[in-house]
């Protein structure tokens, strides 16, 4: 489904990602974790096309995507959300989904939009101004909704839960779990909350200093002393 080979990214002499190798199967749900500055969002940007790596290969659905512009990747089935929600300004919630559907998928299907709106509990806000009429949790939902409207095969979710209150977080998590069930698409999610990750993902990948330091089931990964060290710096349980 998705395969990254030897991805390296440098920003002005700083190695943000070094030799990242990573692969995902269709329908898999994988968590991407790591301390601040580990390069998680940069990796998302490499996959979705916002950042061009200095070396490496990005293969999605059997196609080499390294040189493909953003919109082509979206049309090929890569959906993503932004850590800080980026609703399309000046447009209503419904129009946001419409644009995503029209351009990401190629045609408009109102029924499908309604389905997504219902699913994300955004129906009452369908006509609201996306830039100013939504609460944070709704903005986060809209982020996911836009990505869903493009009918992705793989969804990249960047901290969709951050900044939500405990209750909102729980609700949203349920939504995400349902997402996997309902649409059967693969999810790669960046999330700091370890409880969430453990509940949501079959597999967790840990980045530190731009390198993959662990990859496996949540249990195995969070027991890994190296991971605990990278998180807390100490010789945790050792």
């Amino acid at each position, binding site marked *: 489904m998705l395969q990254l080979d030897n991805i390296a990214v440098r920003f002005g002499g700083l190695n943000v990602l070094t030799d990242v190798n990573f692969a995902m199967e269709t329908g898999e749900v994988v968590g991407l974790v790591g301390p601040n500055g580990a390069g998680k969002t940069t990796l998302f940007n490499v996959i*979705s*096309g*916002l950042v061009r790596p200095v070396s490496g290969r990005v293969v999605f659905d059997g196609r080499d995507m390294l040189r493909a*512009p*953003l*919109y082509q*990747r*979206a*049309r090929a089935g890569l*959906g*993503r959300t*932004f850590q800080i929600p*980026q*609703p*399309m*300004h*000046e*447009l209503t919630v419904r*129009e*946001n989904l*419409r*644009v*995503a559907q*029209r*351009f*990401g*998928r190629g045609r*408009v299907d109102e029924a499908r939009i309604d389905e997504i709106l219902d699913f994300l509990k955004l129906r009452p806000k369908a006509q609201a101004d996306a*830039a*100013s*009429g939504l609460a944070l949790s709704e903005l986060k939902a809209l982020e996911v909704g*836009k*990505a869903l*409207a*493009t009918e992705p095969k793989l969804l990249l979710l960047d901290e969709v839960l951050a900044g939500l209150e405990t209750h909102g977080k729980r609700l949203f998590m349920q939504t995400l779990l349902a997402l996997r069930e309902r649409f059967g698409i693969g999810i790669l999610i960046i999330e700091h909350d370890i409880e969430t990750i453990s509940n949501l993902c079959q597999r967790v990948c840990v980045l530190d200093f731009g390198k993959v330091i662990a990859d496996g089931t949540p249990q195995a990964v969070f027991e890994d002393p190296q991971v605990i060290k990278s998180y807390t710096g100490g010789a945790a349980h050792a």
Partner: protein
Amino acid sequence: MKPIAPVAVLAAAYLLVPLLLGGNAYLMTLLVSALIIAGIALAWALLGNLGGMVSFGHAAFFGVGAYTSALLSMQAGLPVLLAIPLGGLGAALAAVAVLPALRLSGPYFALAILAYAHIFRILATELKSLTGGSAGILGIPGLPTLGGLELGSRNGQYLLVLTVVLAFIALYRAIWRSDYGLALRAMHDSEDATRVVGVNSTLLKAAMLFVSAFMTGTIGALNAHVINFLDPDYAFSGAWTIVPIAAAIFGGYRTLGGPLLGAIAVYLLDQLLFKALFPSGHQIILGVLLGAMILLSPNGLLPWISRRLQRRPATEVRHAAA
């Protein structure tokens, strides 16, 4: 009241104005000039609103359109009414040269396109065999008579330019309301967000550049057949940029009607009032208007008026919440 208003405005524009003012050639000339400005202002606003690009060089397209149409009608002998839209196409063709500038943002784009206006002006001066050089072209054929309607008369010119401007508003509105329009508007503050949902933003922006250039070129062509005269300094004059910008900003460049309203207001005020107040340098008022609008009501007059008219509690609440 709502559905009646546009019909009433249209009726007034098409019937009342020629009936009441038609006898006054001077006023009709002013109105035609104001509509010419409105056409450019509209094209400028379209590029700004949908393409997210501020241009300081729309004179480039105006001039190319004017020259194309004048030469096609005079040298190739094409009928004027055919030459005019071809003038628009000529300007759109010239926009191909401007495509590399799409990569530039903000002030870079604004001033790069100004450089194009200068380059086109110099080319028009230097390509003497084609354009007649700085001497320009005199005696450009006027508008023809069509089905008994003398388009070349002041009233005819008024009706034709009005129709073209209204058609452009309709085109603008159609794009605005289409999915492409949605995507273009969405691109403004969050271009990445639209690109990751599959929008080919570069292509759409290029398309808006072409549409805007076409509109401006068509207006330039119309003007050439109204004034019957062209020279490089006139065709590529900075005035074709400055006055429409002032008009669009004044009327509200984010609305469909703003540029038209602004152009008529600014041009008529300027010619009938400011000119009398400041015999020399009355453009100073344009500068003051521009500055005051940006500082006091960046969205222009029309949104300000409509806010005043429909001061419903609901809007107040929403503004307070925002």
